[in-house]
């Protein structure tokens, strides 16, 4: 066992900060419909910076944490699975620059909207909630919109921090 690397610490610090901010600050702002999905954006940012393997692990952990911290209710595993897939998909996106591009924002928005739909479907399959389909489109659109806006700031920031924490020549091995 090695001591956790700077990048491991950074990833979990980013995930934890995003989690607390989302649950205790963003969700209390009373913005229309969906809560700004900061945690999902951070997962996308880390996956973009570090590749699909890291993306899958960080996504799964972040999703599981979101299902554990108060005020989470219901079953575990659905958000973890969806966020793992989000990390996997975003991890395939090649990093070109630290600047936010239209493409990265669109990708984040798409993943946020898509994950909202998948979570609603999973919730109705596993019976963890009675889904009202008529309100779903509003949540999908607002969630995607908030994610796209957050991506403008979050993705470059995480990318810079991640590049700064270079203590290993091969970042993808950290998670293996």
């Amino acid at each position: 066992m090695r001591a956790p690397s700077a990048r491991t610490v950074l990833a979990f610090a980013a995930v934890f900060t995003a989690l607390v901010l989302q649950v205790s600050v963003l969700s209390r702002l009373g913005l229309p419909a969906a809560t700004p999905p900061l945690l999902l954006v951070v997962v996308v940012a880390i996956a973009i910076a570090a590749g699909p393997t890291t993306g899958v692990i960080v996504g799964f952990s972040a999703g599981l944490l979101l299902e554990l911290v108060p005020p989470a209710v219901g079953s575990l595993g659905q958000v973890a699975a969806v966020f793992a897939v989000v990390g996997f998909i975003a991890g395939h996106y090649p990093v070109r620059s630290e600047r936010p591009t239209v493409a990265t924002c669109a990708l984040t928005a798409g993943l946020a909207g898509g994950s909202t739909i998948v979570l609603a479907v999973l919730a109705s399959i596993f019976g963890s909630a009675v889904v009202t389909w008529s309100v779903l489109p509003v949540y999908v659109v607002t969630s995607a919109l908030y994610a796209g806006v957050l991506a403008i700031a979050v993705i470059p920031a995480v990318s810079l921090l991640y590049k700064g924490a270079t203590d290993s020549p091969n970042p993808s091995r950290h998670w293996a």
Partner: protein
Amino acid sequence: MRDIVRARALLGILLLVSLTLVLVDVRGSGAVAGLRGITAAVVGPIERAVTAATAPFTAAVRSMTTFGDQSDRTAAVTQDVQQLHDGSANQNQIASQANQLQSMLKLAGIGGYRVVPARVVGYGSFVTFTGSVTLDIGSRDGIEKDMSVITGDGLVGKTISVSPTTATVQLMTDSKVVVGARLEGNGQVGALQGAGKPNEAQLRMLDPTVDLSVGQKLVSFGSPDGRPYAPGLPLGTITALHGTAGQVDRSATVVPAANLNSLDIVGVVVVPVRTEARESVLPTPAPSSSGSASPTPSATEVTP
């Protein structure tokens, strides 16, 4: 390339783990509650601190985002005042409400209901179809599972899990929640179910032929021993009717009395577990109380 192969394998494994977790929970294992308890003990205090630190910021933003609600409320209150001035038409209703309120107050006083104030420090967020919030008080403040949570306006929900410093509240608009409801005035009974929308619930009356009208108010029917729902708490107002009288699937849309979109300060009703307390309180009119000398039929309507 190797990274992608490994990522795929890992994704497969983790998806299987997720499925296992979901199924374990469906079977009703207590392990999830245990894990949540540990997480709540660790993260709860952090949520409390962050909420306290960002309170001015959130309050400022919220005053902008909920502006529409406030102006709606002002309009509603103005209308109420107008109706009160108009007088006579509503007098029976008002008298009945006053009676019920009085008996409820008496009930609360003699039953010894105590309300512990709390602050909402976390909102369920990814869950667009379930509603839950975190409070900054927990078991060390005397909070237990299955207690009513209210605001000054009405019922918010019930506590569903408690850690030493935090409590998780399931909102009455959660799609899995059903609250026993009673129409104010005629005392008819129905079930109020969360609609999976943030600030809306569906009412179904036990007797589908009951007269319903937009603007009618609902109070909670109350659970045995007042847990999880204490009796007589305002639930909401009917805003729309679906179906005609007598139709089996007749329902009504209800907007909760408490604004569940922007909760901040709430109270937890700490009901003492006193069996049959209400039985001894209600049937006979209190001899020495000045205002309610007449035997009020509505007083008995409040008892479940």
